[in-house]
């Protein structure tokens, strides 16, 4: 991942004139001389309110100047026109210390757990990005994982780039990484209709065994594998050897394009009497508004459905408005009864900004004409199929429905655990993401940092929900009633006295799963890597 380096990131010898400790000494001396001279000049000035900041002399643990005093004071100011505003970049000449002071003060003002940040002198840290990485809580969740796993930064030029809704360079296939070091396991998760992958007859469960002639399973050449699986330019061509579920192998040559994704990939009626609706919902993008409305209208036709299975196992979130609309379309106005979808709760300095987000009962104009009323199924329970990639806005659907007394029955595995959000902040060419708000449902609940888990989950248990733990089944297509998670949901509703008996057999299979045999693909848990993932792809050695 390309990174903008802080110009002050260089390591200097201890007694080099530019070493931080030497500069600090000089700064103190200069400050003293300036004070004696009564001239008030010296180091950087805010240029507005007469306050002067002299290198590190302004730092006192626990005391913070406003972030706005340091904003846009850059070690290397950008010049020219900022494409995001079509006017000149706001950058002014500053120092690396100004940039570190900015993120220190901004974190103190906005971070949800600002009082859990250990305040470190920004003068002692050369690299703004390394310094930013420290500006978060070190606390752990109940399960022992870091409370804040979502602290992040990226070049503004990457963050402020757009694409046509759901479009990215690729073949139109989503890969699952079951094992990213030898012996590697990379499977087809699903394929977008009309894509190069669909034309090559790729389908769920097929395994990649070679990339451009290199052994993916045991060989070396992670760069070759990553380049072949996630091409970066439209028109790139790569040859993959694919192993079918029956063990047969074939080579396919794929040419990358600007492939579009279909956020609502499958809508069906399942169950003994077709009384259960199934929606495969993969992404909260703009086109999902129309896709979900059509899906619910399709299920409404012919008298509606008795139950709904919402498959969000690969849905990492996106527009919160889409999540709110879907929750409304599941529950309907009677069940919601005027309650809020969720409330964004900020730190105690910003509690005036706490903001209720309603259930949206009409189109917001993303891909349906604004103001059009949305249909609803009027259900008081819903089955959700989940996995570790079920995250953020998808978890909001679960939490918000629980907040209005819709029973949420979870089939699958623990979700990612992200009841948080942020307003990304740009400064000097870097965009920072620090957690700023937590999302509470109508009952005030937001404590699911360890994710939601089926109540019988033994792996990574989080907030327990009724339901059954079931591994991911790559031997059946998504939406096939025989697919293990969907089958477990159907079994659950048909067998209220022993709802997880089918899931238990899947779990047993999972324990002994060896991916060498195709049958073991019926219960696995990998991570889906949707292009363009930034890191964590295929690696040389076991991490």
């Amino acid at each position: 991942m390309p990174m903008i380096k802080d110009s002050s990131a260089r390591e200097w010898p201890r007694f080099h004139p530019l070493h931080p400790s030497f500069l600090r000494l000089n700064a103190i001396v200069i400050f003293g001389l300036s004070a004696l001279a009564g001239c008030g000049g010296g180091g950087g000035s805010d240029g507005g309110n007469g306050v002067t900041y002299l290198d590190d002399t302004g730092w006192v643990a626990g005391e913070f100047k406003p972030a706005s005093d340091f904003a846009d004071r850059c070690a290397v100011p950008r010049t020219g026109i900022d494409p995001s505003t079509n006017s000149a970049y706001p950058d002014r000449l500053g120092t690396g210390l100004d940039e570190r002071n900015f993120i220190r003060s901004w974190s103190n003002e906005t971070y949800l757990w600002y009082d859990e940040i250990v305040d470190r002198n920004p003068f002692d840290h050369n690299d703004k990005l390394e310094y930013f990485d420290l500006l978060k809580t070190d606390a752990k969740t109940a399960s022992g994982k870091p409370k804040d796993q979502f602290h992040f930064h990226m070049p503004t030029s990457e963050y402020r780039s757009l694409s046509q809704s759901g479009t990215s360079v690729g073949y139109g296939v989503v890969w699952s990484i079951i094992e990213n070091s030898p012996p590697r396991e990379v499977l087809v998760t699903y394929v977008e209709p009309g894509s190069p992958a669909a034309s090559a007859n790729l389908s769920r469960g097929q395994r990649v065994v070679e990339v451009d002639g290199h052994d993916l399973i045991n060989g070396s050449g992670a760069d070759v594998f990553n380049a072949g699986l996630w091409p970066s330019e439209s028109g790139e061509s790569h040859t993959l050897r694919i192993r079918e579920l029956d063990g047969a192998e074939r080579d396919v040559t794929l040419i990358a394009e600007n492939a579009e994704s279909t956020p609502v990939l499958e809508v069906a009626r399942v169950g003994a009497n077709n009384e259960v609706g199934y929606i495969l919902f993969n992404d909260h993008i703009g086109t999902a508004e129309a896709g979900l409305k059509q899906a619910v209208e399709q299920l409404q036709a012919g008298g509606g459905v008795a139950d709904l299975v919402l498959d969000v196992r690969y849905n990492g979130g996106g527009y919160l408005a889409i999540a709110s609309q879907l929750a409304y379309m599941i529950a309907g106005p009677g069940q919601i009864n005027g309650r809020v979808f969720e409330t964004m709760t900020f730190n105690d300095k910003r509690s005036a900004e706490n903001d209720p987000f309603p259930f949206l009962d009409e189109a917001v104009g993303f891909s349906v004409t604004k103001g059009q009323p949305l249909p609803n199924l009027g259900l008081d329970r819903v089955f959700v199929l989940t996995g570790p990639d079920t995250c953020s806005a998808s978890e909001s659907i679960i939490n918000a429905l629980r907040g209005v007394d819709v029973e949420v029955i979870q089939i699958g595995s623990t979700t990612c655990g992200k009841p948080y959000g942020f307003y990304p902040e740009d400064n000097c060419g870097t965009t920072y993401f620090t957690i700023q708000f937590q999302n509470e449902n109508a009952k005030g609940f937001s404590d699911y940092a360890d994710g939601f888990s089926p109540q019988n989950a033994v792996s990574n248990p989080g907030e327990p929900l009724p339901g059954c733990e079931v591994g991911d089944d790559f031997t059946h297509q998504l939406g096939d009633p025989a697919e293990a998670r969907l089958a477990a949901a159907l079994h659950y509703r048909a067998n209220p006295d022993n709802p997880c008996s089918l899931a238990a057999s899947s779990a047993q299979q999972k324990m002994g799963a060896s991916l060498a045999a195709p049958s073991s693909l019926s219960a696995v848990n990998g991570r889906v890597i949707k292009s363009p993932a930034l890191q964590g792809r295929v690696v040389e050695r076991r991490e």
Partner: protein
Amino acid sequence: MMKVIRTALPLLLLAAMTGCKNGTLQHEAPARLAEQSDAARAELEQIIAKAAGAYTVTLAEHPFADSSVLLVERRPQRDPQGHRLPGRDLGNPERFQLLVSGEDCILLQESTGKRWELREANCLPQ
């Protein structure tokens, strides 16, 4: 004089709303691209990026091929753990509409009402 203005103003407004070329009122209609070309694509990417305040824009392989409306939104980004960024997006996509008025092909940014006459595109009514 006021009578002239009162009479002319609605006509001028109508002309502005419907498009006017060579003295002839042109009716605007939703459109799609009649053919895809590198030049048309480059022109669309350049205008949309500037209008939407983006550093770059990636369009689909065949923009405006099936629909007169095109949504652009933040390019899918993921953190090192593979989580979508941002997972709770409080913003909204930017909508553009392709219109045809006589022989003119027009791109409309719905949020601002700004319009661009495309030089490289060939449009057909949808």
